[in-house]
């Protein structure tokens, strides 16, 4: 069984909801998710984020739908860490 342990995403989002609410919503997707968010660029209506999510078994699709629900859009998956565990 392969588990995703860490991902770093490049995300574009509107200014609202703010970075704190945005990262909280992503963290709420799983029970042990740790989210680190860095605002790398900002313009009049949008901001570009680097979102690092860590957890024992990340659900990428659920994270993606949380991002989309808040108006964000995924530009790229910049880093991934996965673990293989014998069944």
């Amino acid at each position, binding site marked *: 069984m392969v588990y995703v342990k860490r991902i770093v995403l490049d995300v574009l989002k509107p200014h609202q*909801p703010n970075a704190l*609410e945005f990262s909280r919503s992503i963290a709420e997707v799983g029970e042990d998710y740790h989210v680190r968010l860095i605002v790398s660029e900002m313009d009049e209506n949008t901001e570009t984020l680097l979102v690092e999510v860590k957890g024992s078994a990340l659900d990428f699709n659920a994270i993606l739908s949380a991002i*989309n629900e808040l108006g964000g859009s995924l530009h790229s998956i910049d880093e991934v860490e996965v673990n293989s565990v014998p069944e």
Partner: protein
Amino acid sequence: MKLLEQTALLLRITRSHGIIRRYFVVNGFDGALTMLGLIVGFIFGDPANLPVIINACLGAAIALGVSGVSSAYVSETAERKHELAKLERAMVADLQDSTHGDAARWIPMLVALVNGSAPFIMSLLIISPLWLTDHGLSLPISPLYLSVVIALMLIFSLGVVLGRIADISYIRSGLQTVVVALVTVILIYLFVGG
């Protein structure tokens, strides 16, 4: 609880708290002043029985409520659609299924509800002494005068709210709105009672 949290989120992302507060005060003031004008008109004019006065006031209250709901809904829907389209252009994405899309659909309804209910509730409070007397309750003073007192108190309260928002003396702000109401009463007296 989930509904309240979601509503709070929609208000935050659209920054609509101020708009809703403004609509509540402005249209609440409209409702209170309209009822004050109607009742003072009845006091200064020819005597009419209570059911006639209640029906006239209730008719005006319903009209103010419907006008408030429809005007705010139309204008806020246009405004929210414009904001969403601007955001979609900036994001180069369809945001209809996002929280921003929800906000564009729900915030106009919420604003419309506040805008319509503010004058309607104010009006009902003001005409309540008339209604109570009509249903047999004995009041210490004439129901028309009690309605005027309630109207002035509500108008003062709205002034106090404005004062607190503007962070100025709320007593002064409340008195300013009462002065507006008294000027209205004097004008009605000049036109109707003179």
